[in-house]
Every structure is written in structure tokens, then in C-alpha cells.
């Protein structure tokens, strides 16, 4: 059903000099502490990472609850911030597709799609035989997802021992890790334009619309990058 060897290769992406374990730990420990502040109990904190497993959305949820936003507002805010997962899935899953694999693997494992797992999969899928790529993905997903849940619990339990300086330190780790991974992914001109354009447009559009900034910045910079690629015939 699942090719164990390939699955373990995916799982082992947690190890080594390119390990995502430290940034995952840093951000989910900080999240666990924030959820405690927002009035969550330990089960609810773990459940949030178990069922959502997308940090920006969870941050939006916790902060919305702290300012007393309505449930509908939380839904819309989370949907907008996590909508990026849609183009991310469409730009990854066709690479993992194989006729011999059952569809449920794809439908269930899409839950593992988050920035960390996506960047690792995009970085490593070529080394895996096309037939078993979905099992590689499931390995990456189980590894990163379970780390996130475990670290949320650790963050919740250690909330009282974390001072503000430590939390600020933890909060920078994740964007730094993601930026490094993105720079590593800039192997052709169109991806480089997409990354640089998005980095600049994201904060600029945020000045005009906090909620729609990601969507617009992504569409504009991504389309420019795509057109550029088309023009250069690459």
C-alpha cells in the first residue's frame, strides 16, 4: 500500500543539515505559548495544530480570538491567509501523480501541505521514482505534521518559562528558514522573479489592504514571472 523505503526517505528529511525540525520547533513552541495566552487548554492547542497545521492561519485565529472577532470573521481571515495553499497544492501534486496510486492518498495527504513540507518536497521530489513520490510526500508530511503537534504541546507547557525576548527570538527563526529555502529554490529566472516580486509586493500591497495583500501580491508577481518565462521560451 505504501512503499516503506520511500516513506522513510521522506520521514528522514527531518534529519541533517537541511533539517526543518528547528524552525518547526521554534514556531510551534511560540504558537503553543500564544494559544495558552488566548485561553486554550492543552487539548485544544494540540487539536489546533492537528486539524489546521498551517501556522499563519492559526496565528490569525488566536489573535482574532484575543480581540473578540466573530466566528465568520475568523473564517474569512483564515481562508484569505491560507488560500496560498491552493496554488501551492496545484504546483506540487501533479509532480507526485501516478496512475497506479489510489486517489485517497492524495485527498488525505493534502492535509500535510504547509510551507515547510512543500519546500522540502519541491526540493527533493526529483530523486524519487515517479511511481512512489506520493509515499515520499506522505513521509515528509507525517514527519513535519507530528513535529508541529508535539512542539505546540511543548510550547504550551513551557509558556510560563518563556520571556518576551525568547519569544521574539523564536518568531524570527521561521521567516529566516523559509527565506533561505526560497533562495535555494531560485534556480531559474521565472522563480527568481516570482520570489523577489512577491517579497516586495507583499508588504507594499499590505499598506492598502491587509486582508487581500497576499492574494493580490501573489497573483500579480506570479503572473509577471510566468509571462517573463513565456517570453524567454524557458
Amino acid at each position, binding site marked *: 500500500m505504501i512503499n516503506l523505503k520511500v516513506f522513510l526517505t521522506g520521514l528522514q528529511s527531518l534529519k541533517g543539515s*537541511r533539517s*526543518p525540525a*528547528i524552525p518547526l520547533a*521554534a514556531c510551534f513552541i511560540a504558537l503553543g505559548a500564544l494559544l495558552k495566552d*488566548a*485561553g*486554550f487548554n492543552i487539548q485544544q492547542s494540540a487539536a489546533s495544530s492537528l*486539524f*489546521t497545521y498551517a501556522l*499563519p*492561519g492559526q496565528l490569525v*485565529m488566536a*489573535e482574532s*480570538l484575543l480581540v473578540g472577532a466573530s*466566528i465568520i470573521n475568523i473564517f474569512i481571515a*483564515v481562508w484569505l491567509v491560507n*488560500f*496560498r*495553499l*491552493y*496554488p*501551492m*497544492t*496545484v*504546483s*506540487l*501534486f*501533479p509532480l507526485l*501523480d501516478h496512475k497506479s496510486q489510489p486517489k485517497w492518498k492524495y*485527498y488525505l495527504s493534502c*492535509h500535510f*501541505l504547509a510551507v515547510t513540507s512543500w519546500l522540502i518536497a519541491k526540493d527533493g521530489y526529483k530523486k524519487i521514482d515517479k511511481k512512489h513520490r506520493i509515499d515520499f510526500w506522505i513521509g515528509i508530511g507525517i514527519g513535519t505534521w507530528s513535529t508541529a503537534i508535539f512542539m505546540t504541546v511543548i510550547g504550551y507547557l513551557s509558556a510560563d518559562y518563556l520571556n518576551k525576548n525568547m519569544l*521574539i*527570538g523564536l*518568531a*524570527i527563526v521561521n521567516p*529566516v*528558514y*523559509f*527565506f533561505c529555502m526560497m533562495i*535555494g529554490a531560485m534556480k531559474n529566472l*521565472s522563480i527568481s*522573479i*516570482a*520570489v523577489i*516580486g*512577491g*517579497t516586495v*509586493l*507583499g*508588504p507594499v*500591497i*499590505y499598506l492598502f489592504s491587509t486582508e487581500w*495583500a497576499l492574494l493580490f*501580491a*501573489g497573483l500579480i*508577481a*506570479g503572473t509577471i514571472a*510566468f509571462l517573463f*518565462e513565456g517570453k524567454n521560451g524557458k
Partner: protein
Amino acid sequence: MASSQIIILAILVTSVATFISRFMGALTSEKVSVNSKIFKWFNCVAYSTLAALLGRMIVFPAGVLADSDLIIRLIVLISCIALFIMTKKNLVIPTIISAVLLGVLTNF
């Protein structure tokens, strides 16, 4: 502070709002070929949306990170990217250094 029912509802709503995008992505993927132009467009949009999120996290961060100075965050980010390139794309060293560097620069 939110009541327990509100928290459970918020977790549920957040999870559904997140899963919709993932699941719709999985369904759309079935109709998208790796060699098609639409795949390439999605790929560019995915990278730029992610970059937009990261740019926002650094320039307009949510939560505790907002209490540090923008210039310090930029110095930390640029130094760590340089470190990443110098260490032949080691990710563990720059991520650890980023937390330490931000802590040191914020307090001095």
C-alpha cells in the same frame, strides 16, 4: 477571554477554512499536467504568494516580532541569508543564529 465553546468552534472553522484550499488544490491537480502552461503559472503564483507572506512577516509581523525594530529584523535576515550561502546551504546554522542575533541586537 474566549469561552471553551467559542474556542472549539474557532478551531473547527480555522481547520475547515484551511482544508478547503488544500482539498480544492488536490482536485484541481487531477486535471493539471506537469508540462502545461497552467501548471507553470500556478508554480509562479505559489512561489510569489509565499514570498509575499514572508515579506509581510518581516516588514509587518504579527505578534511578538512586531516589538523588534524593522532595521534589526532586516539585518538579521540578510546576515542569515549570507550565512546560508556561505555554509553551502546549511539550514540549521542560520536558523539558530537568527534567534540569537535578534535577541542580542534587540537588547543592545
